[in-house]
């Protein structure tokens, strides 16, 4: 098992190099001059432009730029962005906010998705099941920016249950409303996936045998239906956490949350190569590690899967 984990962690190296190279190249290939864009309508003196270009190594060819970037990464020096703020600082501010938002959204979709999914699956074809199915379909069909604004208006402005925007002081309470919006779409998928696997496993032979042993209904459901049904759901949730950590540009935009999505969006608008690549590098690590955790969880849930071969 340890060997498997080590091998998976070693795989991070080529993945990391590949993705950063690709992203770096795409930023490099973006049309327009980032320095010129920085000054807007004004025309700065050539000496200023040259200084800035030299500072951000924009006067170097692509491979040199990428080499300098790699060197900086391994010396833990992410450099400064175009507003002369250290990139490491702004990442250190943005990531915890996004992490809080992502975890909250994940908990919401897991708890509600699995709970509703199990109830619907156990009572397939009944009123609760049909209602939940239709509602989940509506949730999937409505785009996030519509849901986000509606929630903001209803719960934030009219009912006043939560602050309509988050702003600088993001905490668990403030992030609850955006986390709901963010988690809602995946909630619908988790619900449908759980419902499908539960109603399939309900008819499994081993469930009938478990009942024949004299187990109570709750025990049959918890030990024999739920655990077996969770295997695909956990995979989906894990893959989803990576996506949520990438920052939700739309949701963070609507609720004005200073998270990764916001930062990334600004950096792309400004063609800020170093910031974009720094964010992406961290995201790659997050993705690889969450995927590894999901695979380990998977082996724990399903003993037939063995990695140490």
């Amino acid at each position, binding site marked *: 098992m340890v060997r498997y984990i080590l091998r998976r962690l070693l795989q991070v190296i080529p993945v990391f190099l590949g993705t950063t190279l690709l992203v770096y190249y795409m930023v490099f290939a973006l049309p327009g001059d980032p320095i010129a864009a920085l000054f807007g309508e004004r025309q700065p003196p050539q000496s200023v432009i040259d200084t800035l270009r030299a500072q951000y190594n924009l006067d170097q060819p692509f491979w040199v730029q990428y080499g300098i970037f790699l060197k900086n990464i391994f010396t833990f020096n992410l450099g400064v962005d175009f507003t002369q703020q250290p990139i490491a600082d702004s990442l250190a501010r943005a990531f915890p906010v996004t992490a809080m938002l992502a975890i909250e959204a994940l908990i919401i979709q897991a708890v509600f998705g699995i709970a509703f999914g199990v109830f619907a699956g156990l009572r397939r074809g009944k009123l609760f099941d049909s209602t939940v199915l239709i509602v989940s379909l509506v949730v999937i069909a409505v785009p996030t920016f519509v849901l986000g604004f509606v929630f903001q208006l209803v719960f934030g402005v009219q009912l006043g249950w939560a602050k309509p925007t988050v702003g600088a002081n993001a905490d668990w309470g403030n992030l609850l409303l955006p986390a709901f919006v963010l988690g809602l779409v995946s909630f619908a998928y988790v619900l449908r996936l759980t419902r499908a696997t539960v109603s399939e496993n309900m*008819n*499994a*032979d*081993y469930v*009938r*045998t*478990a*009942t*024949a*042993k*004299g*187990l*109570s*209904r709750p*025990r049959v459901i918890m*030990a*024999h239906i739920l*655990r*077996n049904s969770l295997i695909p759901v956990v995979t989906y949730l894990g893959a989803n956490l990576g996506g949520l950590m990438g920052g939700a540009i739309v949701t963070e935009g609507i609720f004005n949350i200073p998270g990764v999505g916001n930062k990334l969006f600004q950096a792309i608008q400004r063609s800020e190569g170093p910031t974009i690549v720094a964010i992406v590098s961290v995201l790659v690590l997050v993705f690889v590690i969450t995927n590894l955790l999901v695979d380990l969880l998977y082996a724990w*849930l*399903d*003993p*037939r899967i063995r990695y140490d*071969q």
Partner: protein
Amino acid sequence: MTSADIRIDEATAPVKPILEIRDLAITFKTGSGEVKAVKNAHLTIMPGETVAIVGESGSGKSTTALAAIGLLPNNGRVSGGQILLDGEDISHAPEKRMIELRGSHIGMVPQDPMSNLNPVWKIGYQVRETLKANGRPDGPKDVARVLAEAGLPDAERRAKQYPHEFSGGMRQRALIAIGLSCQPKLLIADEPTSALDVTVQRRILDHLDTMTTELGTSVLLITHDLGLAAERADKVVVMYQGNVVEAGPSLELLRNPQHPYTRRLVESAPSLASRRIQVAKEQGVASGDLLAPVAADESRVQDDVLQIKNLRKVYKLRQGLGKSSDFAAVDDVSFNVKRGTTTAIVGESGSGKSTVAKMVLQLEKPTEGQIIFDDVDTAGLKGKELFKFRRRVQPIFQDPYGSLDPMYNIFRTIEEPLRVHKIGSAASREKKVRELLDQVALPQSMMQRYPNELSGGQRQRIAIARALALDPEVIICDEAVSALDVLVQAQVLNLLADLQDNLGLTYLFITHDLAVVRQIADHVCVMEKGKLVETGSTDDVFDNPREAYTQALLDAIPGGSLLLPPAVA
């Protein structure tokens, strides 16, 4: 109730039945209205008695048993009659009462050991939760004891393993352990061994017998095998289309069946048929006259159409990090197949018999050795020659549900090999398909239907028609009748025998069922763990088995120990 209690009951009061089913009717709600799966079932099981329900699939035997433990599927319900457990009507008992009864009063051993254990829990856990739910001591020692009693060696260590680390036989032992762990008064055993090899089947049934006798458990045995039922049960109940058509003490019912359906069952049960041949031979009747119409004409040329020489197949087993070990699935196997005869390869799962079939069909390459077909070594066949060879050697596979393409209608299924081999025009191909359907005794109107509209027996006839389409010389039947009910099995075997007579076909018959072998084969090759352990004419092998393994296989045929007159009815 312990056996001591039963004895007291016997002494003081008239013995009351453990289970009494009266006029039971069970209805299923389906998309096309209500279906009565069980119309009129009645049976009585006394304490310590074993009663078997026999019938083909769809006869309602399993449904009746499931109703007795309150496990009907959601769309099914008891629509009439009573199920009395120890005098208490449980046909409409509330779920709470059923949970109390299950495990402690009624135990169950299900059919398929592969799917009835939850793959994500350790065996020990699955035993423990049974003990716990029924208020028995559930420590690791108790779990190990329960497993050991069911004949699982090294139970303490085994309890820590998962189902996928167990063989089929071991899983079934674990399921028996679970079913009997709380000493129920009644055990429902639904085809408890039909998924297992004959020798394993015998050992497990013997053990089950011993355990239930010791505990004084009554057993309701569900089976499609009349021979097995007669051997294991005190009484047999025959069900047909939802009705109990006949019931009585096992031997009496077998010797003197009254209902026409029972008579047909007795006649076609392969295990009993073999026995009958045996008895007849002792009385001087040639076995060929009795059942097997396969004895080849004297005039027919008896050359060897297939010669298998020192055949070997080695698989590499991966053991991590580029290491591997060799596993010989087939090890130095040689035999000849005479034209126009039937040769059976018999063995348990893992004996390598199917691998031999695959190699003869050129679906697997032999590691060593030769397969000589019609004096030509098949190893050298390539391209066009291989294509021609395939035309002359055709397969029929075990699973008639899996081997027909569900998206092809019957016409297209049978016509496909003709089209692939570019034989005839569209019109002549259609004529050929019609002829083939006649040959396998299916109506020509079936051409436009799809496999899912047909029964298992009909599908297997389609598979036979498809195999015959190219006028092959050799047909390889890989467990071709194992998935079929006894009556259907008998029909298909008769069909194969007729076709052999009419067309001079040669069969290579791969099977684990010795009873079927006796009915159809001229020669038998017995395989064990990749090696050919015994070969000879069917009569020789059955009458004078030389190897202990062959003897064990023969002894394991259910119903083998029963004494029957040569021709019943």
